[in-house]
């Protein structure tokens, strides 16, 4: 039945994949990818559009069959999956509580608890169609948390959220990791925000370009070759955010033009 094999015994990796290749319709989405994630780890897969991020994620959870290579799950692995987006037909009436009870029913207490964990308390009776983007994302997260997963898998979880919204969402993910101890695997394009919250980053472009801690990846030439020109600003922001002490305020960015002005007026004298 399953297209992923199970691992028994004392293996710490929740998921490991070796030499993973997935092609559909003559197009090779990912090739020769090695991957592993262990208990309690936050791993982020970054990569440009069409780099096979979602394909890798789907192959890892067993939703697509690899053309070559193999995926191993720890025996009894529970995955909580948060999809990229869910287009729910408006003709399908469904409240948040009912959605959380699919496909298995859960007690009201349990549902309330998961909603609270995901920062979506009080939404149980609301129809899905009446939720904002951020609320919907939290409802999806709450659903993924219901089965007390060993691994949370999130595919571009902040698509459609503004920057403060996605920063808050990633903080929430970190909180959940520290309170439940589950590992987190996400795919994202929001490099700077995600990288600050990750233990390890895998940079993907059909194959693994580079991987390691966020610092190592951010300074890797392969990563810079992929993201250097297009996202120079975001990368700078990421570096900036990290070297930056929040207590000293934002004087430097504001004072720069002032100083220039002062310089000019001095020159004029």
């Amino acid at each position, binding site marked *: 039945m399953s297209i992923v094999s199970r691992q028994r015994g004392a293996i710490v990796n929740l998921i490991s994949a070796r030499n993973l290749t997935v092609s559909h319709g003559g197009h090779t989405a990912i090739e020769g990818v090695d991957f592993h994630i262990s208990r309690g780890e936050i791993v982020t897969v970054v990569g440009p559009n069409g780099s096979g991020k979602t394909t890798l994620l789907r192959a890892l959870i067993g939703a697509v069959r690899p053309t070559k290579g193999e995926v191993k799950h720890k025996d009894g692995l529970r995955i909580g999956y948060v999809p990229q987006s869910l287009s729910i*037909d408006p003709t399908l009436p469904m409240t948040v509580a009912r959605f959380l009870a699919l496909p*298995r029913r859960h007690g009201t207490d349990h549902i309330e608890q998961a909603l609270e964990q995901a920062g979506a308390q009080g939404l149980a009776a609301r129809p899905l169609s009446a939720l904002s983007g951020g609320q919907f994302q939290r409802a999806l997260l709450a659903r993924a948390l219901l089965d007390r997963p060993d691994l949370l898998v999130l595919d571009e979880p902040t698509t459609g959220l503004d920057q403060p919204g996605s920063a808050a969402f990633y903080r929430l993910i970190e909180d959940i990791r520290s309170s439940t101890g589950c590992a987190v695997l996400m795919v994202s394009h929001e490099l700077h925000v995600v990288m600050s919250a990750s233990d390890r980053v895998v940079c993907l472009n059909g194959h693994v370009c580079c991987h390691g801690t966020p610092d190592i990846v951010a300074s890797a030439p392969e990563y810079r070759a992929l993201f250097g020109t297009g996202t120079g600003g975001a990368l700078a922001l990421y570096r900036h955010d990290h070297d930056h002490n929040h207590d000293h305020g934002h004087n430097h960015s504001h004072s720069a033009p002032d100083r220039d002005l002062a310089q000019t007026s001095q020159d004029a004298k």
Partner: protein
Amino acid sequence: MILDDFLTRAVVAGLGVAFAAAPLGCFVVWRRMAYFGEATAHAAVLGIALALALEVSVVAGVLGVSLAMAVAVSSMGERGYGMDTLLGVLAHSALALGLVAVSFQSGVRLDLMAYLFGDILAVSRMDIAVIWGGAALVIALILWRWSALLTTTLSRDLAHASGINPGREKLILTLCLALVVAVAIKVVGALLITALLIIPPAAARPLARSPEAMALIAAFVGSVAVLAGLWISYLYDTPAGPSIVSAAALVFAATHIGAFAARRSS
């Protein structure tokens, strides 16, 4: 015996179809499979022609060809063709081909209207047994897979992650669709089966707050349409199948006007 009366038999047959069509029709609406239902229903005419040529039962012919069409279409759906065009081609080709094939059979020219628009007033006890047998099978399948079907409808990936095989759930819906077409052809005919699938759930939507409620209300709307349609047909000598669909359309209009008025006044 109560089934001796043709009108009673018509009511019993119509209610059977309405009960099976309601929950299945909800999925047809939620999954936007209306065209898919149309193609399956139109293929039934080809099934009738084949059944007459091969001298097998019409229900068996319809079931076989509709199932073949449904499976063919749903496997094509995986490959990202322009689905509305493709289904339009298949639905109308099957209908046209079926009409041409039927024309080769002598003596069925008069019956053709019955296959296209139904002949509910002529159902026999045997027809009722077939209709209720098929309807019970469809209802049982949908009840059994209800949660899995709903999860698959929301998202294939969510289904995968929950250990549900979306391909298998889709196959169950496909099978149910072929079954409903086979049993409903006598009641409303090949051209109006999709109407009986779609209109009751669509009429139920403004009144429903949960998927289960929508299916139950759709079954109620379908039953009301069957009763009202047959009554109109009896009083004014109108064709029964189209009268049932017209009654369902009136309920659809009523619930939507009601919902609109409620929104305006609140």
